[in-house]
């Protein structure tokens, strides 16, 4: 089950099952559209959210994400923080390399997400992994 609370233009989602990944990427797209991002950026963001929420499900079992509107007078912005209390990423610099996977995947999730986003950072230790992404665009 996913629960969404929307205060202003922020929302929090639980990620605990396969449908939550579908919901998270749909919600990310919708929030991005509301903020005023182009369809290309909406797709980049939905794809990044799909990757990161699936990683939570796959490697930590469950977790959550928080999406925030960080727009200013001159820029459109969205920031999404993904958090889980799973085992953590042992070697972050390895995990962000193309083709590295401990789960039999393509190992394209983290490196791909990093290329799609303007900001991308990972903090991880056993018991807490936090991946933060953001997309920022100058207002038209």
């Amino acid at each position, binding site marked *: 089950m996913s629960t969404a609370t929307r205060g202003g233009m922020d929302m929090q989602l639980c990620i605990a099952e*396969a*449908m939550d*990944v*579908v919901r998270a*990427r*749909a919600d990310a*797209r919708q929030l991005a559209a509301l903020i005023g991002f182009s*369809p*290309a950026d*909406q*797709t*980049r963001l*939905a*794809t990044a959210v*799909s*990757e990161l929420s*699936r990683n939570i499900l796959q490697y930590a079992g469950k977790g959550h994400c928080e999406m925030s509107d960080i727009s200013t007078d001159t820029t459109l912005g969205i920031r999404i923080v993904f958090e889980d209390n799973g085992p953590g990423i042992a070697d972050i610099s390895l995990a962000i390399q*193309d083709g590295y996977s401990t789960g039999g*995947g*393509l190992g*394209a*999730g983290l*490196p*791909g*997400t990093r*290329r*799609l986003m303007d900001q991308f950072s990972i903090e991880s230790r056993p018991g807490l992994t936090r991946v933060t992404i953001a997309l920022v665009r100058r207002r038209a």
Partner: protein
Amino acid sequence: MRIPILRIGRILLASIQVEMSDSDALRFQNDVVQKIAEIEALGIAIDITSLEVVDSYMARVINDTATMARLLGAEVVVCGIQPYVAMTLVEMGRDLIGANCVFDLEQALLRLQERIAARGDADLDKGS
């Protein structure tokens, strides 16, 4: 959520009409392989027009499905990939989708017929 797989002679047509969860995608892969074997399909067109997100997992399922189909002797063409999806896939990394892609379903069916004809080992109109 089951994706219907239609049959036209010995060609299969799968049109994904909804956003799929990971488990939907795996079930789809399984259904495609079963159906190809069942009717000894010569080719399959997979229409992904409705997929608004193709991430690394979905890319892998599509690629694996295409490889499995080829191992069973069927030609595979993917069609309808959305422009923004194509852009995103290229930005994420090269070669995430390895399958043969065309613009729409009509072209997919043409391409399949060409490829099957080029093989010269099967009669398109005969059922199995």
